[in-house]
């Protein structure tokens, strides 16, 4: 067996976290890591363990079809509320996105804890501020998000191409509810 492939196999196997090609190269001290990773991935095809790439970082994991043997409980590793699930999806499909934009899409304010839960899980991070009025803080997903949900990259997000084509990921047209005459609204409210 190719010595470089062996070395990469051992390094990834021993690592407690996924490793980028650069990090692997620092350990094995050689060029040609990418080609060797390809060979290694082929070696593991169809086995009980597989070599996967998630957001540019590589790790070994058990084959998904063996989940039933390994799952110790039916409990999800981290139960997410509906609000947190929606918020995570909005961040992933629209990133970088401000809190106000998340709220506009959901049509409701998000409670303080919702983003905290996602950040604590290591799936969402802050991603600078948007230049413009108020310089709102922006949120984006992390490499751990891709790892956890088994996504090679954000392009792998379920249905992202269809949503994009349907215009559903375009910047939100704010203020459609304000598009109608504000006075009119107020007078109707008093009527009610």
């Amino acid at each position, binding site marked *: 067996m190719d010595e470089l492939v062996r070395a990469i196999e051992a*390094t990834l*196997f*021993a*690592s*407690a976290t996924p490793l980028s090609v650069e990090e692997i190269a620092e*350990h094995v001290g050689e060029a040609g890591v990418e080609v060797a990773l390809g060979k290694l991935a082929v070696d593991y095809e169809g086995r009980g363990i597989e070599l996967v790439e998630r957001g540019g970082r590589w*790790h*070994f*994991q*058990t*084959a*998904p079809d063996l*989940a039933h043997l*390994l*799952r110790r409980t039916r409990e*999800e*590793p981290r139960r*997410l509320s*509906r*609000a947190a*699930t*929606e918020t*995570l*999806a*909005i961040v*992933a*499909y629209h990133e970088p996105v401000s809190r106000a934009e998340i709220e506009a*899409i*959901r*049509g*409701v304010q998000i409670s303080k804890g919702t983003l905290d839960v996602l950040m604590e899980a290591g799936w969402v991070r802050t991603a600078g501020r948007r230049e413009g009025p108020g310089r709102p803080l922006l949120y984006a997903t992390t490499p751990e998000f891709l*790892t*956890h*949900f*088994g*996504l090679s990259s954000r392009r792998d*997000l*379920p*249905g992202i191409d269809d*949503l994009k084509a*349907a*215009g*559903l990921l375009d910047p*939100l*047209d704010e203020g*459609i*509810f304000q*598009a*109608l*005459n504000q006075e*009119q*609204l107020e007078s*109707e*409210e008093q009527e*009610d």
Partner: protein
Amino acid sequence: MGVEPLDFPVGSDELTLNLDGWEGPLDLLLSLARAQKVDLAQISILELVDQYTTYIAGARALKLEIAADYLVMAAWLAYLKSCLLLPKDPQADPSPEEVALRLQMRLQRLDAMRETGARLLGRDRVGRDVFVRGAPEGLRLVRKSAWQASAFDLFAAYGIVKARTQPPMHVVHARSVMTLDEAIERVSRMLGLAIEWLDIEAFLPVTDDPLFRRSALASSFVAALELARRGRLDIAQEEPFAPLKVRSA
């Protein structure tokens, strides 16, 4: 979260309508729309407006506290409906149809995020469906010191050690003095010239150094006393503080 709105026997006295079950008016609208059609692009906005206002009216009939944002939405929808039904106003920008379309897009977008969120959670997740290595050995970073020292540092250090441990040696720096021996030797040599009385200052060497001159004067005076004791010269002073005179004996 949910109260299924359309299963709801409106008008029943035992009914407790819980608006807290909805995450805002948009959530309620989306549920109504989904009950109407699977494909949100096909829903009837006019029908949706009626369903929403009926629902809110039902809640109000039960004298429930209804949050203001639900009422604002109801009013806005009623207004949108009237705009859609009234003869077209060519001046209106955006047109009521466009506003209706945007509302529909918003519902579709929220629905899409809800659906993709569920799909994300259903993927093969690490720790639930796939597992990473249970007990990785871990990769370690070992820091190694690359010690820096130059040859000069080394030699200087040895110099310091030797200097520190050498037996102490006191070197007195050459100072501008004339020793007594030098003065005796010099005055004896010059006595041959002193047939007559000479001022003692005539025996001093020519110098610009005032310290050396003082030292030479003092030494020469002591030398004169010594030579006088040996009977080699005579010393005379006419009065206190007058110049000292020296003559060969």
